[in-house]
């Protein structure tokens, strides 16, 4: 590590409190229109079920978990959260264009680890998040944020469990980020 401080200029982000107000209003509008909040992990679950059902339909039908999401009249991709997540991707691209962050493929990592290690850890972290979101009945968006905003006990539990654990274990993973 070099001894001199290298701070790359902060990119153009909107004020976080403005972002929060907009996100809060968005949840409000979403609940007002659809009767439920936003989500994200459910779309990946739909993708898993769809892939499994395409590659091995019999095995998928025999799987006690996945069979709940298979239906005869439409694909498991034909769900609200899949369309919403497609929107997340489009919205991200739109914001990236507006603020000049659409650049070539790159990897973010802490100063003390290599890109390769970061990518390996991203897969592991993603897998844990995938498993955890099934037990939690949703991830940070669906359970922690939308759940807590509607005063659901489960949402508040997931929120405290995610962030509480994050703070409790951050010390052991500090080399990844600082």
């Amino acid at each position, binding site marked *: 590590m070099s001894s001199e401080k290298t701070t790359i200029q902060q990119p153009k982000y909107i004020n976080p409190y403005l972002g929060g107000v907009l996100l809060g209003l968005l949840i409000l509008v979403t609940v007002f229109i659809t009767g439920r909040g936003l989500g994200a992990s459910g779309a*990946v679950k739909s*993708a898993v079920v769809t892939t499994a059902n395409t590659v091995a339909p019999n095995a998928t039908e025999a799987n006690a978990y996945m069979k709940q999401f298979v239906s005869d009249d439409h694909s498991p991709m034909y769900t609200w959260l899949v369309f919403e997540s497609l929107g997340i991707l489009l919205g991200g691209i739109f914001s990236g264009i507006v603020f000049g962050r659409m650049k070539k493929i790159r990897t973010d990592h802490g100063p003390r680890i290599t890109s390769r290690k970061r990518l390996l850890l991203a897969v*592991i972290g993603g897998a844990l998040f995938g498993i955890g979101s099934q037990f939690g009945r949703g991830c940070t968006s669906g359970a922690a944020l939308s759940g807590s905003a509607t005063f659901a006990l489960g949402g508040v539990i997931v929120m405290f469990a995610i962030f509480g654990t994050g703070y409790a274990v951050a010390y052991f993973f500090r080399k990844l980020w600082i």
Partner: protein
Amino acid sequence: MGPLIPNGIIGEGWDFVIAILLGIAFGFILEASGFSSSRNLAGVFYGYNFVVLRVFFTALIVAMVGLMYFDYVGWLDLSQIFILPTYLTPMIVGGVIMGFGFVIGGYCPGTSFTGIAIGKLDAIFFTVGLFVGIFLFSLTYPLFEGFFDSGYLGNVTLTELTGIPAPWFAFAFTFVALAAFWGTMLIEKRVRKNMKQYKF
């Protein structure tokens, strides 16, 4: 009046169009706030960037207070909205696993989609991980099916559980949020001053 789609004020056919539009707004807000960078997100656990806490808590209290106002003026019937069901132990365990996933992986599912949007390879790998994790969960589901459905308390809210009216919770969350905004501002300033390198 609301919720509009369940009450038939907006036709079911618009459901997916609205899903994409709301998703676009969601993705835009996340990316514009800086949630497309795992380093920004992980900063909340190390004190060098509290953007997650600021956006998350602000959104939470705006939505909470907004929902109560909508209910009060009669625009939205809160008894008709979806309340996430509570499975006590599985949700604690799930949250703990997600906490590890967040610190190790640097993203959560929604934010990883916006990372992909602007070309972050680590976000792509994280999403691949999500896919693998959910697949592994499905395969091994029979082993812990009993646990998965344990601790069921129904679609219970904080008010139903404690008897304390919802505005009190909204007030408490708002108070804690404002205290956290102030405290973390001081922490962030201090941590950043001592940091050797910070690339967004």
